[in-house]
């Protein structure tokens, strides 16, 4: 028996993996790696870099332990019905030595909530934050503290939930093919050389070292970034955001509006406030912005911008097959690079807005 998400309907992949030796070599220099799947995203340089640097096991976590992160990965990917990410997490656990029987027992315990109280609190928090309906409240953070998690662990846990969801969206929306990952753990070569592969997987998982910002963060979500002062997460997130705003593929105005739509859809007023300054700098007065955001349209929007806003709104809560169908419609009107950037923007916006709501002040 394989992944319980096998029944989730999944469309044909909307992207072609395009090899680009130069870009891959540059990525290796900048980030230390260029895995095969990154070829789907190479047309959007900031997303390629962010997707590698924001890898949860890539030197970002200082306080939270990896077994908890693995459970959060399973729960969040299951909540988001992401076959691709769920299959990868499941495969990693199998390679690390978890038998299929133990894997299934774990999945049953996750479904029924029969876990050790501390772990159960983390799972509940991951579910609440992912569903965001309603948004996480300070009481949810208190429950984690009461269960025995430190403030540093809570911040990292919120980051993990938000950015596993980031990977869920960049995988689900373009329907990256999950099939090979779903079968991989049972392939003969993995079974034969499992100890070797287990060493490899353990080798990929690197704990982070305390780090500080090269320069104080500015602009939208600067307050959120400052909550990660001292953690390697802060500088990586700041760099992803700077790169996103600087990218010329989609207009800065369209990207800011997509962020604002997602913040509004989630009911996160503070996320809307974060982005208001960018909209004003892009020539949209608060009244103009309100008119656009209230109805996802208006005379000041072009047809592509209107389509991008409707798409952004659809990525807040979705069924995979529905969002993949809407993504296909968007793909038909945009270039490959524009489409990839749009996927990156909605993924980052959904994650940051949820994180902003979960960490309203220094915990």
């Amino acid at each position: 028996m394989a992944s319980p998400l096998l029944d989730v309907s999944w469309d044909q992949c909307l992207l072609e993996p395009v090899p680009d030796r130069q870009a891959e070599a540059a990525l290796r220099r900048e980030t230390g790696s260029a895995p095969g799947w990154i070829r789907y995203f190479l047309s959007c340089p900031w997303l390629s870099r962010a997707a590698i640097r924001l890898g949860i096991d890539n030197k970002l976590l200082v306080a939270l332990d990896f077994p908890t992160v693995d459970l959060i990965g399973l729960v969040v990917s299951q909540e988001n019905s992401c076959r691709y990410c769920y299959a990868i997490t499941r495969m990693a656990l199998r390679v690390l030595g978890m038998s299929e029987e133990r894997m299934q027992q774990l999945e049953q315990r996750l479904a029924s909530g029969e876990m050790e109280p501390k772990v159960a609190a983390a799972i509940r928090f991951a579910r609440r934050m992912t569903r965001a309906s309603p948004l996480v409240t300070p009481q949810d953070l208190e429950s984690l503290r009461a269960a025995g998690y430190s403030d540093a662990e809570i911040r990292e846990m919120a980051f993990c939930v938000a950015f596993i969801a980031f990977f869920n969206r960049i995988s689900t929306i373009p329907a990256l093919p999950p099939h090979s990952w779903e079968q991989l753990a049972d392939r003969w070569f993995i079974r034969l050389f499992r100890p070797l592969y287990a060493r490899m997987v353990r080798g990929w998982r690197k704990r982070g070292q305390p780090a500080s910002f090269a320069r104080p963060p500015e602009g939208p979500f600067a307050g959120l970034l400052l909550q990660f002062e001292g953690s390697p997460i802060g500088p990586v997130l700041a760099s992803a955001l700077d790169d996103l705003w600087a990218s010329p593929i989609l207009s800065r105005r369209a990207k800011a509006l997509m962020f604002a739509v997602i913040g509004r859809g989630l009911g996160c007023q503070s996320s809307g406030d974060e982005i208001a300054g960018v909209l004003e700098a892009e020539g949209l007065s608060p009244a103009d912005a309100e008119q656009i955001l209230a109805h996802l349209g208006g005379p000041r929007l072009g047809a592509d911008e209107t389509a991008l806003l409707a798409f952004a709104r659809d990525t807040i809560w979705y069924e995979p097959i529905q969002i993949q169908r809407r993504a296909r419609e968007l793909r038909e009107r945009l270039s490959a690079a524009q489409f990839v950037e749009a996927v990156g923007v909605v993924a980052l916006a959904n994650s940051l807005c949820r994180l902003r709501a979960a960490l309203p002040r220094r915990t």
Partner: protein
Amino acid sequence: MSFAYALFLVVVAAAAGLFAWQQHRLRILRARIEASTVELQRLQQSCALLAPAGVVERLFSDGPESIAEHKVFTAMFTDLVGYTALSGRLDPKTLAGVLNGYFQLVSDSVVEHRGRVGTFLGDGILIFFGALEPNPWQCNDAVHAALAIRDGLVRYNAELERTGLPRIAIGVGIHRGPGLAGLIGSRDRREYTVVGPTLNLAARVQALTREHDRDILLTESVREQLDPRFELIPMPAVPVKGIGEPVVTYTVLGGREAKKAGPRFEVRGTS
């Protein structure tokens, strides 16, 4: 020597027996886990037919009591016009086919515009927008869904006529307001729904579609939140049972209705 050999054989046989027994137990355990996982999945799939998927997931993870919240949502009631006459003209199997086609058309239009079908009430359907997840665009969604139903009905009627069946007509009432959304019912039987005066008024507005001879009517509270690019026609205020003031409603132009309504005018900013 022969004793040692015999002892060795006994130990080997015992070890082999123990191993075989453990393997047998493992197979039984594996079969049980697989059976219960399949059972759990089947149960979740069955529940998904009775309530929205998100509700089923919350029901499994957090329990039924967790699903009850006060929300501002948009309720839509649709009803078949002249169902009684239709049921007298068609045999039960044909009638069921016509009804199922209408239910499917409404359901598809609603899901396409992020609504949830709450309950089938005879030939009527209760639909809500913004009850499960926050939805600041719920009024626009509801009106888009109503227009999609209107357009879909044109195609469905053409299909019915081709097969010699009578055309059908529907009335749609839309109202926005507060209510309780959750798993409501007795200890033995509950369903995910919304309750409160918002539903009552949506149902009454749906009934007004006959009086005003319009297929879609919406209330002032919907109009206030609506994209001004929708073209609305105000209807005369009408007293409604249970409501103190006469109720002002609007019909919306679009699709077939727009063609027969003649000159259009917008009601931006008016009440």
